[in-house]
């Protein structure tokens, strides 16, 4: 009998420590404000990959000392066609400033306003099911922690929805310092780990060493964790060795006009009009892009060090035809399935 109990105990311990995700729920972030609908290619990706879940940025919240907290970048997305989605999660990005100098009354008002506006915009997404979950995205700091957490609780109370939030790697690694947000689940953001201009030789979107410095041992976070991975790229333009602008679109057009000078860095060899920006000979570009194997290596690091539940959502940032053109559907699919291998 004792042996059986002992055997069962060991089994539970081993199973409990098992990190393996059994079911990956695939999703994307949709972050564009000015598009009315998905493009044909975006639709095709969603269908081929059988994406049922979408985190859609409904709006952002900014703060002004005269006007208080106000919404900006409101989404224009209207899903007229019956798609294959079972779940649209309204996502709101809130600037940290919003939580800096505010009182409880202000936070109550904020929660009420956000709840109201989300519901109003939800109407654009009918005939889909009403959202069960709202996601808040804010890079909170030590100073704003208490206010942000108060706000999250209030939002939950008013909306009566499941509330999730984004979680950067720093608060993930130091929960005793940064607190654990009072939400039902959190999405661990495994990208943008470095200030883009701070380190000229690292890829600020995803640097594996940097990721490993946060995910350096197995940790069980006291909340259900989902994962977000980057599938975007950008070009930082430097003129006279000084940062000038970031280019997101038409990178393919620009690449043939560049000459590589060192890892990540290129020099413009031909004058080129990139939208309204005139790229000149001699300008320098830091092109940060993530090849599939780098993302897959990151997945291995995450799998090794983060304890997941059996069912976890993996979200790619972000759904955009041009950004995703670097990856085949098979590669994108692989990003999801690698979590359950």
């Amino acid at each position, binding site marked *: 009998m004792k042996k059986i109990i002992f055997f069962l105990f060991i089994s539970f311990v081993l199973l409990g420590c098992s990190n393996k995700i059994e079911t990956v729920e695939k999703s994307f*972030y949709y*972050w564009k404000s000015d598009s009315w609908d998905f493009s044909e290619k975006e639709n095709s990706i969603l269908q081929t990959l059988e994406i049922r879940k979408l985190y859609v940025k409904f709006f*952002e919240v*900014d703060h002004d000392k005269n006007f208080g907290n*106000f*919404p900006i*970048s409101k989404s224009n997305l209207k899903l007229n066609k019956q798609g294959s989605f079972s779940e649209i999660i309204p996502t709101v*990005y809130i*600037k940290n400033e919003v939580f800096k100098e505010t009182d409880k009354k202000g936070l109550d008002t904020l929660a009420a*306003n956000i709840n*109201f*506006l989300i519901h*109003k915009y939800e109407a654009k997404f009918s005939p889909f099911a009403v959202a069960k979950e709202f996601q808040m*995205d804010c*890079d909170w700091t030590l100073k704003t922690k208490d206010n942000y957490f108060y706000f999250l609780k209030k939002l939950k109370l008013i909306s009566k929805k499941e509330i999730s939030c*984004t979680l950067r790697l720093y608060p993930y690694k130091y929960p005793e310092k940064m607190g654990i947000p009072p939400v039902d689940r959190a999405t661990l*953001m495994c990208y*943008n780990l470095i*200030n*883009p*201009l*701070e*380190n000229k*030789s*690292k890829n600020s979107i995803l640097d594996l060493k940097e990721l490993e410095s946060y995910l350096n041992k197995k940790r069980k976070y006291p909340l259900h964790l989902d994962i977000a991975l980057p599938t975007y790229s950008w070009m*930082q333009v430097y003129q*006279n*060795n*000084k*940062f*000038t*602008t*970031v280019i*997101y679109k038409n990178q393919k057009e620009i690449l043939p006009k560049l000459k590589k*000078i*060192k*890892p990540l860095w290129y*020099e413009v*060899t031909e*004058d080129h*009009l990139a939208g*309204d*920006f*005139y790229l*000149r*000979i*001699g300008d*320098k570009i830091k092109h940060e892009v993530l090849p599939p194997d780098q993302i897959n290596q990151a997945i291995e690091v995450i799998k090794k060090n983060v304890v997941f539940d059996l069912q976890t959502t993996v979200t790619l*940032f972000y759904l955009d035809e041009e950004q995703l053109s670097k990856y085949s559907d098979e590669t994108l699919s692989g990003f999801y399935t690698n979590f359950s291998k």
Partner: protein
Amino acid sequence: MKHFLVFILILVSNSIFACGFYPYAEDVRFSFFNPSNFKYRWYSDFNYSSLSFSVNQIPADEEITVDANEKLWIQYCKNKVSAEAVREVLFDFKLDDITDKSTNEMLQYLYKTKDIEAVDYLKFAKNCEVFNVFYDNLWEQNNAQKVRNRTKLIDQAILLSNSVKNKNLKQRYTFLAIRLAYYNGDFGKIRTLYAKVFKTQKQGNVLKYWSLYFRTFAEPDKATANFYASQVFANAPDKRFMVSFAFNAKIPIDAVLKHAKTNKEKANVYLLAGIKKADHSLYYLKQVYKYNPEFDGLAFLLLREINKIEDWVFTPYYSLFNPSVGSYDRNEENSVRNIMQRVEKDRIYAGQVIEFINNVNLKKVHDPALWKTGKAYLALITKDNQGCLKQISKLEKSVSRKDSLYNQIEIIKALALTVNQQVGKAVILNDVKPILLKNKTQKKFLFAVGRELEYKGNRIDASFLYSKLEENDNNDDYNNYAYWKSSKAKIGYYTDYYSDYFTYINVFYSPEQVQAIVDETLKSEKDLDKFSSWKYSFMKKEIVRLYDLIGTKYIRQNKLEQALFYFGKNEDKTEHKINCSDCFWEKEDCSNRFKSPFFVLKYTPEFVTQKKLYSLNKYTVTQNLISYLKKASKPDEKNKDYYNFLIANCYYNMTFIGSLSEMRRYGSGEEISIRDFPVEDNNEFYECNLAKKYYTLAFKNAKTTKFKALCLRMAGKCEANKLAYRYPDDYENPIKNYNTFLLKKNKYYQDLKSKYADDYEDLISDCNAFEEYFRARR
């Protein structure tokens, strides 16, 4: 997660990505062709700038002109009312102010002529004002109520437009309805109303173009929308800024031109397309000229094109390249060369624009003075100095001296005259002097003249002009400062540009050149003319600093006697000895360094206990160093080991890791710890080669094993610095087991380990042993 726009703003913001100021965009743009000299106020939102289009503030001293709407009202009132009266009703009055009791001239006229229709219109328009916003609540609450009220007003406006007799008022009501429909999001209504009332109107007035402005946003076809936008742009100056955003530059221009029926309409399309182009707009200039040569927009487009070209040419030419110094880094050298080759191509383009101007009939165009001045300036850009000066001399005769344009012409003349001189013979010409004086607050202009002199070999006069950059520093107009770089300097983030003369000459001038500056400044005591007195005024206050600089430069060259001579001009030559107790009881000011650099190394316990302290300065340090060198070199000197050791300590302290780095460098902290500072003794500053030499000499002359070991250890310390400098731990090329790698390469430490094995651990692991080993000298 990112909000991209906010992210970009954060990236661009100086206060976040640099913990201090760093010049960019308009700070660094060189522009000598000032748009405000040409009075295109209504286009000024589109003045060329390295930033995106922004609303331009109207200068306070500019007189207010009567706009088109005010003119229409004045006409309506049969020219019997003043513009001020109209303005008061339109902008200052509320609904309740519109009564027959008002003393306003316009209202009195309307009531007197019993034009109640017009009065009713004004009241209605006042009622509408509050609805001419998108939402009063950004959270979109109470929106339904707002929209209902606005819809009622729209319907009312349409009814009134149909019922009123006067054609002008009919149009006004329709315009109000269109504007309200825009804020209501009712684009269909806009299209219907516009088609009904304005589309067939042959002579456009301000009401038509204001309505067309909203009609543009209601147009689904992009090419048509572009066409509308361009017509509004040309005809409704007050809408220019906003409607420019409705013009989509990606739409092929031929598709837009299909809608243009007249030459003027075509010209309008080419104008807006040309303004929105960030690269070459010459083709558009030619087309606008072809279809509407008298258009003021054409002249503005030319002005903009000239500002673009000068930015492409002069900004890199003046601020990036220092031709007198060779390049430091292969990549950077290639990059700068590519930029300069590009600049030559831009000069060729400038020539093409001149060719266009040459083929223009100046009697037909708006503002011929702009074209002529522009031509002169472009000639300068193409390096046709003679052509430029010829054009300038014609302009000087035709433009009044009181006109601000005259000063513009003189600025171009000053640059051309300076550039037109031969290398090695360039000076500040007498004709240029008064122009410099008159424009002494234009820092970039002063800098450019100085830079040209420097390029032609006259570094002394260049430095005087650079010194003027720091005067009149009363405003925060960073656009007016001069910032420049050297292709050689690739220093840390904050300090790879120059904005003052001293930092620049510190790096790039020889001691003889600095001496020449001093000589000329001191000689100038006798000069009385206004220009000379201005030229030398700043440098006269800098003599002490300049002497110090010359001395420091000689230290860098290790010419100690010369250094001593110059330090002696400023500094107290006596060595003050201070008792420690005087420091405790504050009888002496002990804040200056008082630890002898011959006996004390930074972060190291003292070799010898200092009973007396020294108030040191550069003169006394140099004097002592010379004295010890003399002693050490005497053939019969018994304590060569001792003196060489002290000399080595001093040289060690003069490196980046020592307590006396100010012997070689100015500034502190970040500024002097930055690698690649392009100063001649850079290697010495980081590698401490001189210290190593004298530690080695001390070793050779040492008489005891322990002292030999100490000398070897110190030489090894220098060697370690040198190796770290030569083989930096670079992220891109990481060296495995870096510390072990450095140790293996350090032959002094290797010798210490193998030949002085008993002392190795003591000396390497702990600096506390130094005193014991130093005492073991004898």
